[in-house]
């Protein structure tokens, strides 16, 4: 029997193939074109790839579930929805990245060296961030679509490796940025190891790496339950690390703070969608039968994550760190959707991910605008009195904060409401009460920021709010309108999600 080439379903894989293909073209562009024309070309082909891929996702939306690439990838409703969400968030991330002055001219140059200064002066700015982002997007799209543990791991690495690099690309405060990148990389490597370890044990348990195989082994196979538990726990550690759940969250604030803000926005919004997507698939599809083994632990982790995120956020003095802890708290809320393990939970999670992602991109886009002569200003004490100078920026930023806090008429409220409803329906009332109480704690620090912006007088060393570029402006306004629209008229979007929200088992 000779070698048989695997059949590839190009149609079903098109969204991912486009992104990966253009990423490779981006590398070639980076290598062969002159520095002057690189940036616009990179931006154009990246945006083009995302839009094209999005159109392919849209084309696939009604089609029946298919598996592709010899059963290693599954394309079903939730996957398409998450791919679409990731692509839309990436579109905005690219618009933010296009304000290229956030990035180091040459990532390889030693911080503070002459080489770096020369590169900046001569305008020889490298734009490798575009292909890197595309690779990360490709990995993120593959992550929730993976149908076996091997593909899952490959996707995890494809999405993570570019992110480690991108975190270190900041033009200003490069040492902090590089420290963040290294930290992210080391801890990420550990978590990958845990993930692999878990995958190996699950293979040992089920004798199969495919999610369907594990599912049938869980629901009454001859497997060894100890292997199952060890496998589940280790695999979960890897996934919980990626979503930034406590107690695996400690990288989040450092990386969010150190990374260039457009990358932070991209990471906070899109990575969360991908990681929760994969988590939802694994737990809904494969490990649902073992729910009584993992539910208590996951409930504890969800509650811990909410509380840790909300409480520690209060003590933060840096806007990006505060948003990082807020994202940890949101990871806790999202975990309640995983634990709910019902159709409502899936729908609510999809809505929550989309609405949280868009508000996060918007909020970080605004963070890029508040600057002084040395770059962005993260220190909250210097955000004081922002409303006096730029009322529009202050209002929109408050809108995003109110959405994070879950105040009615914003998307965040509908997300919180639906996800807690799902949790309550699954009988997990403890997590609802904990969620509501930590929302109250979280409200405190969101409101404190609003108070600082609106009700305090500007300090002496005032920061300036730069006039946003067209790209950033577009991002901010679309995010703001989406946050309001999803809060006031969520019905069409909820109905859309309902058509997507069934995992194929």
């Amino acid at each position, binding site marked *: 029997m000779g070698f048989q080439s695997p059949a590839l379903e190009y149609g079903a894989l098109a969204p991912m193939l486009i992104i990966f293909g253009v990423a490779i073209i981006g590398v070639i562009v980076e290598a062969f074109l002159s520095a002057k024309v690189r940036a616009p070309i990179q931006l154009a082909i990246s945006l083009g790839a995302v839009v094209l891929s999005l159109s392919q996702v849209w084309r696939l939306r009604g089609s029946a579930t298919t598996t592709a690439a010899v059963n290693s990838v599954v394309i079903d409703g939730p996957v398409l929805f998450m791919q679409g969400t990731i692509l839309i968030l990436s579109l905005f991330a690219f618009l933010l990245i296009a304000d290229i002055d956030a990035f180091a001219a040459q990532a390889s140059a030693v911080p503070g060296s002459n080489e770096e200064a020369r590169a900046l002066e001569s305008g020889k700015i490298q734009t490798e961030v575009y292909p890197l982002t595309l690779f990360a997007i490709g990995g993120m799209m593959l992550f929730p679509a993976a149908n076996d543990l091997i593909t899952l791991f490959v996707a995890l690495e494809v999405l993570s490796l570019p992110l480690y690099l991108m975190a270190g690309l900041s033009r200003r405060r490069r040492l902090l940025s590089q420290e963040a990148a290294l930290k992210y990389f080391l801890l990420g490597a550990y978590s990958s190891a845990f993930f692999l370890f878990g995958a190996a044990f699950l293979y040992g348990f089920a004798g199969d790496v495919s999610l369907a195989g594990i599912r049938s082994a869980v629901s009454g196979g001859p497997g060894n339950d100890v292997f199952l538990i060890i496998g589940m726990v280790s695999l979960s550690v890897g996934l919980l690390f990626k979503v930034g759940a406590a107690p695996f969250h400690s990288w989040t604030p450092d990386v969010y703070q150190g990374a260039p803000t457009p990358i932070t926005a991209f990471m906070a919004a899109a990575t969360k969608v991908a990681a929760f997507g994969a988590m939802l698939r694994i737990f809904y599809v494969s490990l649902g039968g073992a729910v009584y083994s993992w539910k208590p632990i996951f409930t504890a982790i969800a509650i811990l994550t909410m509380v840790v995120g909300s409480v520690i956020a209060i003590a933060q003095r840096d806007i990006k760190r505060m948003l990082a802890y807020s994202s940890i708290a949101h990871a806790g809320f999202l975990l309640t959707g995983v634990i709910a393990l019902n159709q409502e939970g899936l729908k609510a999670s999809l809505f929550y991910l989309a609405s949280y992602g868009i508000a996060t991109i918007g909020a970080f886009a605004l963070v890029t605008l508040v600057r002084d002569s040395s770059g962005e200003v993260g220190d909250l004490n210097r955000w004081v009195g922002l409303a006096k100078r730029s009322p529009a920026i202050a209002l929109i930023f408050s809108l995003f904060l*109110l959405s994070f806090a879950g*105040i*009615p*008429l914003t998307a965040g409220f*509908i997300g919180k*409401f*639906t996800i*807690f*409803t799902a949790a*309550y*329906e699954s009988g997990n*009332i403890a997590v*609802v*009460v904990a969620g*509501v*109480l930590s*929302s*109250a704690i979280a*409200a*405190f620090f969101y*409101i*404190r920021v609003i*108070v600082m912006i*609106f*009700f*305090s007088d500007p300090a002496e060393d005032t920061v300036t709010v730069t006039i946003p570029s067209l790209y950033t402006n577009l991002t901010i306004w679309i995010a703001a309108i989406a946050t309001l629209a999803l809060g006031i008229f*969520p*019905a069409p979007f*909820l*109905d859309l999600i*309902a058509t997507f929200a069934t995992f194929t088992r």
Partner: protein
Amino acid sequence: MNLLTSMGLLPLIGVGLIALLPATNAKLVKQSALLVSVLVAFLGITMTIGFDRGVTGFQYVERYSWIPSLGISYQLGVDGISLILILLSVLLVPIVILAGWNESEGGRFSVKTFYILILVLETMMIGVFAATDLFLFYVFFEAMLVPVYFLIGGYGSGARQAAAVKFLLYSLFGGLLMLASIIGIFVISGNQIGRTFDITALSTLEIDATTQNFLFLGFFIAFAIKAPLWPLHTWLPDAAKSATPGTSVLLLGVLDKVGTFGMIRYCVELFPEASRTFTPLIITQAVISIIYGAFLAIGQKDIKSLIAFTSISHFGFITLGIFAMTSQSNSGATLYMFNHGISTAALFLIAGWMISRRGSSTIADFGGLQRVTPILAWSFFIAGLSSLALPGLSSFVSEFLVLVGTYTRYPLAAVIATFGIILAALYILIPVQKALHGPTTAGNENLPDLNRREIAAIAPVIALIVALGFYPKPALEIINPAAQVTITKVGYSDPQPLVGGDK
């Protein structure tokens, strides 16, 4: 278009209009805001006249699907209780705008913003009372915090930011607890009758006792913070003291009524069994509020804090009336909400004028105002007498109904609460004596009396106080059927008077 939606929409149209006006022309902004609010008040009066008094259940009903997949609809309607509170809201807004003509100046934000906030708040106030969909109610309940927060923090005096934040955090905390309960009842409705937030449908649910108790507590704590009831009241004196007089009127007069309104509409009607379970506890709390609020009011040196504490005492009476569960006490409680609204409005507005004239809010700084500013002094005196429930003035009727209604079921509570009336005489008459009578304090000789605008603002309030004191029938006719329905829903019938003393 339906009347309720028009009433809610009109202030928002006014907001759009004001936003287009030039910011420099403060007078035009004020006039437009006043005009809009007067129009809304007329709509409110039209609605009251058109309200069919003999009928129970909701009137002016309208319903549009909003988020069908979650069973949420935009659903409005009024019964006697909500009608009277909407009427109170729409009457107070123009009075507040007229009375506090200059309050909007010197704030942190522009004059325009002040009136935009006030009008947005008016829409929210109408919505929160008119909503017959629990989700819609919650949306208004939470969203109305935002304009109030900016009104206190942006235009108040003293430690206004701290007060605004305290107000917001207390309210949000309560609101989130309520959210958990709302989710609970929503899930139960999904299991029993299909997902809905319609409160009439929700009140037919069969909920087991334990769950009912927890859900009830979520609602009750939120409303007890709002109302506010001892020991959850500590935000109120700060907020009332820091806010502008006009904001305080809306805060104490209307917003806090959302709490007592919610106790009737949501706590009692959705969870009748749990209401009965918790009644002894709540009655105790209410009696403590009455006495505690009154004692602290007596001790206050600041006139705004004094009015705030008297309100805590009055909210105790209202809560007592609600949970005594007789139709008399319940009607009395609802009428009390209205009367407390107007007499507190009068007190706060006049206190505001006194403070702006004298530049101080300490009671001791006034003295002998009767001689210098007779109209101001008389108005304050009448408002004060109404607040202490003097027969012939409006509050007397409601307080009497509450006490009589309570006595038939909880005689001990009623007897203790009656001491509240005696204390009320102290906390009103002592400041009246200090501020209005006696020799004129140095520095006060040349204070101007009320001008025409101020008289125009206060006259209708005083007229209402006197009119409802002598002839409360129209108001009671509106309230009584609704109160009767509430009592029936809880499964109580009024005790016979003859066995009233028999506990």
